[in-house]
């Protein structure tokens, strides 16, 4: 359990949020031209990083907005929070 600083509402308990998994997975621009292998990559394959991960969260029990979080998955420490569409921090 940890606190997440929602960019719209401020710091709240993690239990108010829903995790949305790995961020910046871009939806294929031309889905009809994708091979089965490319679909599998897009739909199922994940980095599942142990360490610093870029991920999406939704404040489901709050403003219900999506945003991005940079979190170290080995100790759950949050490094940064940024809105959808913003450039990810280095």
């Amino acid at each position, binding site marked *: 359990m940890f606190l997440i600083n929602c960019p719209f509402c401020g710091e709240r308990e993690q239990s108010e949020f829903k995790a949305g998994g790995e961020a910046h997975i871009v939806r294929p621009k031309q889905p009809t031209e994708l091979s089965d292998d490319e679909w599998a990559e897009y739909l199922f394959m*994940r*980095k599942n990083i142990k360490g610093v991960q870029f991920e999406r969260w939704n404040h489901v029990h709050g403003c219900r907005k999506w945003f991005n979080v940079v979190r170290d998955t080995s100790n759950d420490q949050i490094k940064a929070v940024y809105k959808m569409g913003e450039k990810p921090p280095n």
Partner: protein
Amino acid sequence: MKNQYSIFSLIKNAFTYHENWAKAWGDPEPKKEYDILIIGGGGHGLATAYYLAKKHNIKNIAVLEKGWIGGGNTGRNTTIIRSNYLWDASAGLYDHALKIWEGLSQELNYNVMFSQRGVMNLAHNLQDVRDLKRRTHANRLNGIDAVYLNTEEVKKFCPIINTSPDIRYPVLGGTLQKRAGTARHDAVAWGYARGADEMGVDIIQNCEVKGIKRNGDTVVGVDTTKGFIKTKKIGVVAAGHSSVIANMAGLRLPLESKPLQALVSEPVKPIIDTVVMSNAVHAYVSQSDKGELVIGAGTDDYISYSQKGSHDIVEGTLSAILELYPIFSRMRMLRQWGGIVDICPDASPIISKTTVKGLYFNCGWGTGGFKATPGSGDLFAHTIANDEPHKLNAAFNLNRFVSGDLVDEHGAAAVAH
């Protein structure tokens, strides 16, 4: 066996105050080269090495474990064993394991304390009733023992359950698999380690894999904290850390690693002589031989390798436990812990070759891998030895995520993913 356990060896060793028992497995330094390396010294990894040596006569094997054997999820689960899964492929896989469990203590000459006390799955709403009835029929078509119980029969089988129609999610019925039950998780790891060691397998603890060396699309060895080890085949059985190993080989897997929690209470006299699971309210409970209630909670929904879960998950599970078993209301919880489980999108495991020659993965068991330990080891050993899957694990290949031929077991997995 140099150290056969029996009533006679027990008496003999009593004369020397039990100080002269031979070590159950050795502590070797790694050799320069092995025919097969198994990464991960949990139950599944040790079972794989055991069956490779026993059934496929390959002796030059090492099991590499970064901590101590059985110190990961093997020692963290709630020890439930059952095979009442929905689809034919899963029924074949899990019942294969259950059949091995039934003779495992004799085979290993090690008491794994397999106790067929039955597992009951409760229904709390009409959809549960329909799903569980469907699953009972599917199980019976696959030769798996399963019966559907109505509320009165549930109460008769486990009298402490609150079957009042007035509770928030009343018990509308349930299924019972009588051949199902529990086993001692540590003993499974120790028994397989002892058996594998006896046949010449090197069990190397405190040896973490840091990299996988490839020559083109073929594996040639691994870098470890104890140096480089050459090999032709690598079997990865690293549970929550499967993706970490996969990344070392330049692969991605369809896995997400999440914390799963369990807790035990203070020990009390026998009160519940079966295993009861409730998927809908997320509560399951059994009682260990020491008398502790063993309670399984759910997974957190975020990726984490921290081996600790959130308190609200425990709170949710315990509130459901108290509603179903008011008799436990004043019991104190003694210990709580988390393990990292590798979850597949279809809640079924992967026992498969990969696109890298000589690299095999046994992963994705998610929240319910313990029950499959013997079968998983047997089938993974077959897959590695023959470079092709056994017919029982053919459906559990990595390619199913490309072909779309998934084995959706979210309903039977019993722990919400």
